[in-house]
């Protein structure tokens, strides 16, 4: 037994309902546990409790007991648990410490007192395990989000922990990259607890499934049994769950966007886009898909006018609005209402209507940074959609979003498009419902 959680109840400082209520479970060696549940259900808090960060780093009221590798987390600081436990957080940018990749992977090893003679060997082994040895001497701030996520996993694997905690670690990886990533974590031999919103990905690896909702552990069962429970009680979380929305293509309508021959290179000779063509019609929801580095975000930014193409033509019959990746990071006003009203010259009536559409009407006076991550994402969407652009572009809108919310966003976007506008979604989430899917591939680099 690696970890044991006994009747854990935890409230963050500042009051509010418990983030975890009377949670009990045990984790054995070799188990791969999928931790599922809606956003804000307590998954990340449970992972932090297993790492000792709750309560040591966050404070709050803690009742019950968590032991990891025989150590009581109430009396053992997270830094002392490091090595036995390793955590990979959702956003790699927020956990990278060093400037060079090899030094970054060595950082944890140095902290836990690994014998100096072993360090570089273990660094190379870990980088090899995540297929990132070629990045060894690169600067961390030059890497893409997907590459950084692999470096973060390598940093965790290098510690050879008994328990590895993964908090939505593949959010910036395409499908193939995510499978390799999780296989590397599974190959560690210790126990793995994986919190994921891409359910099929998590369930394909898991031996056991936990489902948390409202801070309570509703399900703790082997994968096969869990599949039946999920199908009966939370169908959107069931393996192979059908898409909640199966829209039929709209009838032929006039194009709102037409691009032809668009090329772009971030540095001379290295083309990200090579003569891409695309037409989007009114009423359509179009998904722009492709692996990491295929140019989805670049094309979206060119369409939105945030980048100038090196060659080609972009024509849009109307106004364009774009929601960037991770919009919760880019909020600029002091209240939710002001944030939503920014794009409509402070028109509070329109801002309230936009907030109402995304379910934030009760939070208008709150500071945007006091919202949960899911609420921030919705605020970002409201802040762009409030101006009712003819073409709404969203870059990875389902990153870290639970299946229920994803279905709600998809339905909302379909309605938005049905009102005579259009939506273009850049994502590597293959399950995102759309009228049409357009592929950008690394080999071809041409949108059809």
């Amino acid at each position, binding site marked *: 037994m690696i970890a044991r959680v006994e009747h854990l109840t935890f409230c963050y400082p500042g009051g509010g309902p418990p983030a975890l209520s009377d949670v009990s479970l045990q984790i054995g060696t070799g188990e791969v546990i999928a931790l599922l549940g809606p956003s804000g259900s307590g998954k990340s808090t449970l992972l932090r409790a297993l790492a000792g960060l709750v309560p040591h780093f966050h404070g709050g009221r803690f009742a019950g007991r968590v032991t990891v590798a025989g150590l009581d987390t109430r009396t053992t600081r997270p830094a002392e648990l490091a090595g036995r436990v390793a955590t990979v957080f959702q956003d790699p940018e927020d956990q990278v410490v*060093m400037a060079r990749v090899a030094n970054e992977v060595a950082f944890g090893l140095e*902290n*836990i007192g690994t014998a100096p003679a072993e360090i570089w060997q273990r660094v190379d082994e870990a980088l090899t395990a995540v297929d990132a040895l070629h990045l060894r001497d690169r600067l961390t701030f*030059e890497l893409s989000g997907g590459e950084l996520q692999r470096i973060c996993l390598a940093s965790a694997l290098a510690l050879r922990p008994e328990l590895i905690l993964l908090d939505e670690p593949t959010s910036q990886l395409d499908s193939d990259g995510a499978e390799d990533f999780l296989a590397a974590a599974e190959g560690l031999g210790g126990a793995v607890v994986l919190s994921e919103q891409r359910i099929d990905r998590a369930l394909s690896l898991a031996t056991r499934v936990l489902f948390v909702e409202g801070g309570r552990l509703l399900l703790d069962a082997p994968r096969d049994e869990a599949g039946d429970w999920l199908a009966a009680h939370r169908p959107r979380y069931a393996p192979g769950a059908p898409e909640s929305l199966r829209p039929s293509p709209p009838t032929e309508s006039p194009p709102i966007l037409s691009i032809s021959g668009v090329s772009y290179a971030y540095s*001379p000779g290295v083309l990200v886009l090579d003569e891409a063509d695309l037409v989007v019609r009114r009423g359509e929801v179009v998904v722009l898909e492709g692996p990491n580095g295929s140019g989805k975000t670049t094309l979206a930014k060119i369409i939105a006018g945030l980048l100038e193409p090196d060659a080609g033509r972009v024509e849009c019959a109307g106004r364009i609005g774009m929601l960037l990746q991770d919009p919760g990071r*880019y909020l600029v006003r002091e209240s939710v209402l002001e944030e939503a009203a920014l794009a409509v010259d402070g028109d509070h009536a329109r801002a309230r209507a936009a907030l109402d559409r995304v379910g934030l009407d009760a939070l208008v006076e709150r500071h945007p940074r006091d919202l949960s991550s899911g609420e921030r994402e919705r605020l970002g969407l409201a802040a762009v959609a409030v101006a009712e652009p003819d073409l709404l572009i969203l870059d990875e809108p389902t990153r870290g979003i639970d299946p229920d919310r994803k279905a709600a966003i998809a339905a909302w976007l379909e309605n938005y498009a049905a009102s005579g506008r259009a939506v273009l979604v850049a994502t590597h989430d293959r399950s995102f419902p759309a009228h049409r899917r357009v592929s950008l591939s690394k080999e071809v680099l041409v949108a059809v």
Partner: protein
Amino acid sequence: MKLAPVPATLLFASAGVAGLLASHLIPLAALTLVLLGVCLRAPARRRRPYLYGALATGLGIFIFSPLLAVEGYNVLWQGGPTFPVLGQLGVTTEELRTAALNGLRLSALALAFSAYALLVDHDRLVAAAGFAPRSAFAVALATRLVPSLERDAGGLSDAVRGRGIRVSGASGHAKLLSPLVAGSLERAVNLAEAMEARGFGRQTRTHAPGLPWTSLDRIALAGGAFLVVAGALWL
């Protein structure tokens, strides 16, 4: 970079000092060219702003200082409007020589710093710091976060432009300063949490061994010392 961080840093520092001390044009130009060649080993995208800054500063000194200085008798050109304090503009051979010398000095110093910034492994340099390692680490971490800050600033600007709002001028960008700082504080808290989870602060810390110094490293150290002496006495 084949040199270990400490000898590389000392060598670049020595080259910068030698550049400042030098008073002969040709050896100073040669030193500047060598430093430029060293900087060209860095990736093109990273080196561009450094080289632009270093060379543009030197060139600026060379172009403008002869117009402002009053030195020498061999007048090459005189004319234009008469300015208060400066008088009529003019350029002499002596002024040109001094301007070239000062321009090269500044370029050499800037290129030496560029080579340090672009090519030295700062993580390992900090690890090699025998004194105040925590403070050295904090400085290195702050340096590491500068690119994140730049990216966040770009992201904020793009996010606002994505909503159809123009961000222009100093006042437009100044409005993004407060959310940028708030975002940085949030990132710092997340980073602190991640560092704690990775064992930072434990008493048992070890250090990954640097590569043992090679004869090249020793030559670099000796070369650095020679450069300073040469800069003071002969260059």
